[in-house]
């Protein structure tokens, strides 16, 4: 094994990055080489020295000023989980409400297209009423008490018309 490679392996042994068999092999190498034993000891010493002595630092600006800049960046932006939950809820609602909204729109359009009161050219006094029925036959009745008049419109299909005719003939 090249010397440089052995040194790196010694370091890997110090860092516990070798498999058990590799570590055993390196320990055997060290047993026969004083220079490697010294290197091993020095690497442990250096590693301990560095890892335990990171220089602690204090922000060079006030905590309030530091936070203000962060708050400006995140202001109005909810944490990702909340935002994503909200958008999921919105998507879920949209998927389920969209068909209902479509049906509601159709119903509204049909309602708006209902026949209006026909213009009969008659001047009615104040007290009158309009009655709409919606059974098998579409019936629209106009009653005016003051004018003593009742007008009834019947609207029915050809099938119904035939049935009624047969009934009368009987």
């Amino acid at each position, binding site marked *: 094994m090249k010397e440089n490679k052995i040194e790196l392996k010694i370091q890997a042994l110090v860092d516990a990055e070798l498999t058990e068999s590799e570590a055993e092999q390196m320990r055997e190498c060290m047993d026969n080489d004083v220079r490697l034993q010294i290197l091993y000891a020095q690497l442990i010493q250096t590693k301990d020295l560095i890892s335990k002595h990171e220089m602690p630092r204090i*922000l060079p600006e006030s905590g309030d000023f530091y936070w203000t800049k962060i708050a400006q960046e995140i202001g109005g932006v909810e944490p990702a989980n*909340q935002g994503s939950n909200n958008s999921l809820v919105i998507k879920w609602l949209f998927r389920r409400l969209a068909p209902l909204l479509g049906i509601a729109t159709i119903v509204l359009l049909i309602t708006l297209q209902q026949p209006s009161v026909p213009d009969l050219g008659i001047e009615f006094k104040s007290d009158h009423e309009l009655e709409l029925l919606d059974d098998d036959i579409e019936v629209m009745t106009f009653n005016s008490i003051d004018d003593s008049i009742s007008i009834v419109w019947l609207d029915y299909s050809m099938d119904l018309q035939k049935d009624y005719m047969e009934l009368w003939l009987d």
Partner: protein
Amino acid sequence: MRKVPDYSAVDEPRLVDGAKSGDMQSFEELVSRYRDKVYTRAFSIMRNEDLAVDLSQNAWVKAWQRLAQFHGDASFATWLNRIVTNLCLDELRRQKRLRTDSIEEIEEATGPVENRMEIQDVDPIAKLNQKELRERIDDAMDKLSDNHRAVLVLYEYEHLEYKEIADQMDTSIGTVMSRLFYARKKLAALLGEELKREGLIE
């Protein structure tokens, strides 16, 4: 009258939960508790006050945006340090301070630098107090290249494994091992020179 909660008395998991549900005051308390640590990590890598402040603030913004990804597998401080470390590495890459084809790297691959530099016995350093020791190690860190310092910080302070460092730095495990070895040797040598100058060793 509703009592205003004393956030400084609230434990970390509750603050994290509060922040996750959008409570800015919980998050502000977390910032207050860990801002120096996050700044320290950024400075350890960047060695520049302004950059370290900016990057540490960016790390907090990222943390807020990614709170949903924090599940408490590691501590909140560890999770934050990972975020700021990644931002620092990105910044070094952006500034092209993480070189992959430098003479230094070529020498590392072939070995002469390590062979020329004998590792120093740092035992006399034990005579120094903790504060003096930290200052000397910090001075020596300042003299390392960005590549070597980054590897050292990731390994010794972030406690990442070789493979994880290689992934983060887009390099091979062999290069990580080589950089780490060189960085340790150089740091020990710099400390040795300093101690000689101060007469602590002959």
